[in-house]
């Protein structure tokens, strides 16, 4: 069953002569529990696509459906709720809230939703992410790898159906990269979460179920690896 359906997605920045088409009529579907890698050169529209899927940015035209429901039919306020409940986002630059400690950052989407934090899940996650003993550190007291693990923790805390990661290892060394990917893969496997990862790293792409290559805002290839 397809959990994500992207149909005729177009995003234009600017207007007139200076208009840039970041995405040009992109359509594809992602099945539940699938691990998709999106690759492409800089400026090919990878990040734009991911932000549309995550409800962070609105498309110029086209739709994104999650579980058959049009994401952009929602108001901005509903979109915020969508982001905190339905998807987990991981960025290259971590984007942690600098004034919150590790636990607070991780629990942020749950708390903003007014729901109770699942204690077992939290403890387990801290253990799995190797953040035990760092619970009450602020982001700038952590290394890059640790910060990215907190960002992953934040994305997974709500057990979202879809996890979207934009070059999650782009800032990390190979050992940390492998660790981050292992964590994402593990979550994908064990919880049946759908995982979409943008990457430059060929090794990472090769671990995915499917690799979509973007070029100039269009899909150049869509390859099922396994």
């Amino acid at each position, binding site marked *: 069953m397809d959990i994500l359906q992207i149909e005729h997605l177009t995003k234009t920045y600017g207007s007139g002569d200076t208009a840039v088409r970041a995405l040009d009529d992109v359509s594809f579907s992602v099945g539940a529990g699938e691990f998709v890698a999106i690759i492409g050169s800089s400026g090919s529209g990878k*990040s*734009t696509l991911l*932000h549309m899927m*995550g409800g*962070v*940015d609105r498309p110029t035209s086209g739709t994104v459906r999650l579980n058959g429901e049009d994401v952009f039919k929602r108001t*901005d*306020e509903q979109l*915020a*709720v*969508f*982001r*905190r*409940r339905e998807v987990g*986002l991981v*960025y*290259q*630059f*971590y*984007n*942690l*809230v*600098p*004034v*919150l*400690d590790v*636990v*607070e950052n991780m*629990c*942020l*989407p749950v*708390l*903003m*939703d*007014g*729901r*109770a*934090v*699942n*204690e077992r899940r*939290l*403890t387990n996650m*801290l253990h799995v992410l190797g953040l035990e003993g760092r*619970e*009450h*550190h*602020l*982001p*700038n*007291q952590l290394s890059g790898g640790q*910060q990215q693990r907190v960002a992953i923790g*934040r994305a997974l805390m709500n057990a979202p159906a879809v996890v979207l990661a934009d070059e999650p290892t782009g800032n990390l060394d190979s050992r940390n990269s492998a660790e981050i990917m292992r964590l994402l893969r593990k979550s994908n496997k064990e919880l049946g979460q759908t995982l979409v990862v943008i990457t430059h790293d060929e090794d990472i792409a090769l671990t995915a179920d499917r690799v979509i290559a973007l070029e100039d805002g269009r899909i150049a290839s869509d390859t099922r690896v396994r």
Partner: protein
Amino acid sequence: MSSVFVRYTLRSLAANRVRTAVTVVGVALATGLLAAVLVSVTSLRAALIAQSCASGGVWQAGFTYEDPETVDALRAATGEHLDRLALRRDLGAAALSAESAEESGTYLGVLSLPEEQAGTARSAGDDQYSLIPDPTVAEGRLPERAGEIALPTYLQGAELTAGPSQIAGVEAGAVSEGPLEVGSVVTLALGQRHDGMDPAHRWHSGASPMDGETFSDVGEPRAYTVVGFVETDYETGNAAFVCYDEPTATASGKAAGTAYFSTTGYASAGQIGDAIISAGVDSWSYNTTLLIYQGLDRGRAIIDSLAQIAAVLAVVIMVAAVSLISGAFTISISERTRQFGLLSSLGASRRQLRRTVLAEAAILGLVGIPLGLALGVGGAAVAFAVTADGWTAMLRETTSVSLVVAPADLALAIGLSAVTLLASALAPALRASRVSAVDAIRSSADVRPSRRLRRVFARRRTALDDLSADRRRPRGLAARLGGMPAFLARRTLAVSAGKQRVSVIALAVSVALLVTAGLVSDYLHGATGYIDTGTADLRVNLFAETDDDYLPFGDLVAQTNTLAGRAEQVAGVSETSVTSQGSVAFRLDAAGVDADALETFMQESPYGAYYLDAAGYGSAHLVLLDDATWHALAESLGLSDAEKDPATLSCVVLNAANVSNDETYGTVRPFTGAADTIELLANPENRASDQWLGPAGDGTFGLVTMDDDTMETVVAVPADELGMAAVAQVHVAAYAEGLGDAAPFSADDLGANAPNVIMPARAVAASGAAETVRQGMSSSTVYATLAPGADDAETLDALEEALEDVADYGSLGTYNLVELARQSRAMELTVNVFLYCFVAITLAISVANVFNTIASGLMLRTREFAALQSAGMGRRGFRRMIVAECSDVAVKGLVGGVVLATLVNYALFQAMSASISTLVLEMPWGHVALAFAVVVAVLALSAGYALRRTHAMNLVDALRSDVM
């Protein structure tokens, strides 16, 4: 090489147009305010000096000499310091006949006009005023050649007779042919007056003889032609003037003189005095007022307090400006931390980085400082133009304050502004130069947990310690009360306390300033409000020639009617009231007297005891009103119809006595109100010449006398033994604490240390007390209100003319109450204009400060906000978070401001209490509310602007942005 950094700086400034503009405005405002304060102080000082120079001349010191060689000694002693020198010869004095002395004094002194001595250097601009002004001519002209004389005005029309003088064995030496007028000839035999104790010490002028003085060396009589009459003044006494070349006429041919001189290059009055001493002179006088204004002498100097005020204001301005500008720099630097790191990694030296920031300051200064100078000087010019009337009123002269723009002031303003800029930029510049490449590139944000937060985290053990018991909220009060937005706001404030403090201090200072401005204005309004003039616009006082010959008409009512009739005829007068004042002895029941209040009065008042004792005996300051005025007063006090009738013998007792001395101001209520009637008493008979009716030192009322040994007032005959017959029983219609708006006069116009009793003149004239009251009367007053459109000064002149020949009044005084009120309003306006200009500009600086810190602070957090949004925070929650943060700053700023303002209020209250003892300490909640409104508006504006800017930025761009 450095041009790269300058270009880089210019680009950074251009990239943050709004903040750059706000900072430039801040620099301009600070410079402008500094320039305005300095220029204003210099202008005021110049006006004060001009006033002093115009009225008293530019002499700094003067001394009398017997021998012209003393003047040469002074020239030698002062050397090149001597600027100008004028001599005035003292030709001696002539004795008047005993008959003429009755009116015109024992002597007529003769001085020469001062003559400036050539051959001395002159400092530039100094010669626009005379060294010592010539006397003011009232009629005719000043003497121009020998044999001419100008007499003091009091001799105008007088006849100087021959005969023995008041000095034993001396015949009159001043004789005129008929009454003196321009063209008359007066013959004077001039001699020398000497101090009896110290014959070397001469009295050079004045009409009255001193104890023990001697008069000798009288020369031959000489005839002088009277060419004019001059006003007398304090400096020259009651002297006549001849020209400087007039030959000496004393028997010995000696004439003394007074030398007046000014100097340059001395640092203090003391140095001038030393020079005089070394010239062999042991007694001299200073032109103290001028020396104070010139800064050569201290004392209770206006100039000193002006300088102090200027210094205080300059410090306040500089503190506010440093807070604003350094805030802007700090934000500008932290915004570019990564850029600086990058530059550093590319090989920029620390010095180059520091210079980048200092270059930024220099560019801001190059634009802001000239702008500020123009603003400040222009603003001061406008402020002085608007308040010209007020200054003229305050300086009590026709001198007006014109703008004086001294290059030194402008240079000082520029210097102080530059120092302010440098002080603001230095710390940020140092910080910028310390940014290491690694730090900058790594730094996720400029966030360091505060010590408090570190302690909080240190206490938390398990992961769950971050959460509330139900795991639905973060731990803490803010989250429980306001949910996630409040929690995030609270945490942000806890982490970046230092940055917030800048905003809080800026807010607190501006709130305090605004409240203080309101307070000072209130106090000033209160102070000027004490000038209560009643409802009348014009007042003419008519005084009896001597105590005994008052009321030549013999009838109070006729007198009143005559005055009122004359006054009403005057064009421009719409309504008139006529009152007559005097004193009368009275008695009331002892129960009607508040002995404690009398005790307070005796202790607090500088005038000693009140004219009323605990037994009920006293002397009243009686005010008799015409029919209409009595009726209006009775109406306003709510008296009965019978009491309103001016034919009914009743009175209003003013139950308020001011206890004012140099330090305090207050009011006591001497009457309890228990006595329904007062008895007017006949004057005591058989009074000795050294006895009078009044209170003794212990407060007892009676016939009192001065004890020659103790110099205390003691009772000679107690009041109850004087046998003063009751001449009338007067019903007390009311004990009034004030006169309200109906009376043409105010309570302040009445007697200060005697009970004020107001009665209708008609009833008094018809009563048995008429003769007693008549004997006690001393003056009448005509009050007039102006008809619409009438000119107050012209009407007052006409009124004076109409009343002048009503009767043989000894003297007549006119008061333009409209003008007095106008002057007091003009003074208030003047003070308010300067006060509010200052506050407005300081407020503008504070507003710019708050805007810069709040707006820039929020804009710096763009990426953090984006992270929150991508993690699912909605617009509403976001807005609530920002509102919570800003409210926190607002509340702290307001609380700090109110605390600060309360301290200032208390200090002001203390200062004012020294002069007004009945003042009540009150917090001006109106001003506080206004300040609060301003604070909220500024915050809302700043936050609104910042959020619009952050939202304008694409969320995606924000998330990706690698520039912190």
